[in-house]
């Protein structure tokens, strides 16, 4: 696969209004879309638009067919035994909230413990805080070591009495790849259920949900080249019996009376209301695009980018990099620069067409642990190149020089 040519597939990089080449290093926030994904969305609206699961006319059947094909595609892609385990959501955040509301509220009792980690995104923290307020649950955290990796030394002890372990497969803040299999196995042994936040994993490396065998696994389409507004929650079949409906409305019901109703089996039971149909179809096109690249290749490409970025940026004396060495991380480089605040860096880089994130990246407590209020973050994806990383490093050297030289301002 020639990753150097990939940019051509993404119209955002070819816009006429761009004054300079767009160097987009913020794919952990959201990714860009290849033409094939955009076309799939346009195509759906132009040719097959009708409400899914509702009508018997041919157009509606085509729409339903396209929609359900994506469910099967996702199941195949991630080695999920049955497409019925694939529930469409708005995204990772909604997937976690759904589990908290439909499973957690039903199954967790006063005094139960939920084990999270110090790497969690607010999306995998706040829903549990809300539930713990409501039900008087305890929250505990797997700590990180000085390289931003999970410290699993005391995991068996931490797991004592725990009913649910919820953690990210890959950290959006530091890029740490967590030993998902080890944690799932330990949790299972301790009798705990497991939710894996795969928002930063599914877009970037081959994920085998069948093998990981979690109880719940969540991710978002918009971070994996697909449209925004849609995501996936995988539920292990046994867990369905322990879940009450999340939202009520159309499509999730079977027989409705004035004072009671029966529900559809999963997955429809958890998909109340009209779904983001065109977005689901677009997500299908994104998966096909990623399949054409090969997830192994995607991972290798990002590994190459992060190794290079780690090398050239750690060679700049003013730079402090946070998180693990390249072997334990994916394409995320989180750093600070001496004397230049991260927000200033973002503005100064922007002048050169380089987009990066500055702040806490939805991980405020983690930043408190790291002892910084804000960091700068580059996050890479399939369309990024080694050349762009070199350009960013040269740019940073220029910025640092100008920052410290009293005459070099506009």
């Amino acid at each position, binding site marked *: 696969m020639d990753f150097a040519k990939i940019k051509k597939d993404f119209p955002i990089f070819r816009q006429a209004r761009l004054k300079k080449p767009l160097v987009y290093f913020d794919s952990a926030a959201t990714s860009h879309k290849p033409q094939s994904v955009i076309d799939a969305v346009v195509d759906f609206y132009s040719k097959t638009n009708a409400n899914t699961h509702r009508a018997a006319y041919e157009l509606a059947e085509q729409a339903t067919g396209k929609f359900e094909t994506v469910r099967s595609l996702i199941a195949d892609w991630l080695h999920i035994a049955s497409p019925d385990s694939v529930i469409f959501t708005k995204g990772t955040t909604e997937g976690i909230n759904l589990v908290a509301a439909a499973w957690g509220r039903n199954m967790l009792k006063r005094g139960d413990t939920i084990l999270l980690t110090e790497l969690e995104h607010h999306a995998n923290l706040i829903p549990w805080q809300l539930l713990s307020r409501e039900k008087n649950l305890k929250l505990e955290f797997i700590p990180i070591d000085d390289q931003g990796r999970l410290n699993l030394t005391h995991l068996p002890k931490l797991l004592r009495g725990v009913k649910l372990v919820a953690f990210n497969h890959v950290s959006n803040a530091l890029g740490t790849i967590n030993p998902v299999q080890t944690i799932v196995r330990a949790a299972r042994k301790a009798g705990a259920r497991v939710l894996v936040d795969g928002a930063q994993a599914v877009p970037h490396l081959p994920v085998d949900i069948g093998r990981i065998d979690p109880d719940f696994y969540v991710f978002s389409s918009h971070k994996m080249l697909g449209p925004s507004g849609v995501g996936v929650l995988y539920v292990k079949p046994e867990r369905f019996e322990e879940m009450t409906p999340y939202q009520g409305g159309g499509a999730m019901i079977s027989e409705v009376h004035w004072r009671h109703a029966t529900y559809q089996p999963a997955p429809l039971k958890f998909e109340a209301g009209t779904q983001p149909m065109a977005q689901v179809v677009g997500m299908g096109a994104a998966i096909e695009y990623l399949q054409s690249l090969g997830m192994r290749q995607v991972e290798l490409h990002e590994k190459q980018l992060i190794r290079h970025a780690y090398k050239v940026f750690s060679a700049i004396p003013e730079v402090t990099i946070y998180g693990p060495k390249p072997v334990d991380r994916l394409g995320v480089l989180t750093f600070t620069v001496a004397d*230049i*605040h*991260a*927000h*200033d860096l973002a*503005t*100064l880089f*922007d*002048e*050169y067409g380089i987009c990066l994130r*500055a*702040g*806490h990246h939805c991980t405020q407590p983690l930043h408190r642990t790291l002892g910084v*209020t*804000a960091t700068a973050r580059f996050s890479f994806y399939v369309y990024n190149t080694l050349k762009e990383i070199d350009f960013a490093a040269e740019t940073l050297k*220029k*910025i640092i020089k*100008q*920052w410290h030289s*009293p005459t*070099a*301002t*506009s």
Partner: protein
Amino acid sequence: MALAYSHIVMRHSRQPVNQGRLVKASRKFQGENISCGDQVTLFVKLDSKKKITDVGWEGEGCAISQASTSIFSEMIKGKTLAQAQKITGETLMKKMDTQLSPARVKCATLPVHTLKEATD
């Protein structure tokens, strides 16, 4: 390419004026940009006619918020508190002479909003 920040911003960032707490301040104002963590505290000394005779400030955050507070502290000295509280974000931004995105405008106008919210 030159740095995106103007000369005046860089000057105040490197050599801030009126920095430090005023021991005998008449009023103290605290402000914070929750989303990005910038913080400033403004101290003013007022005479009998409510005129600002001395200003001090302490802060933490990006160069824009700190330079803008330094510039703002110069602007309000000699004005009455009421006059100083009428200074708008736009006036301050004009002085700063730097194009900023909406998110960064919040950093720049932090001292303006801070002075409007008394927390004595």
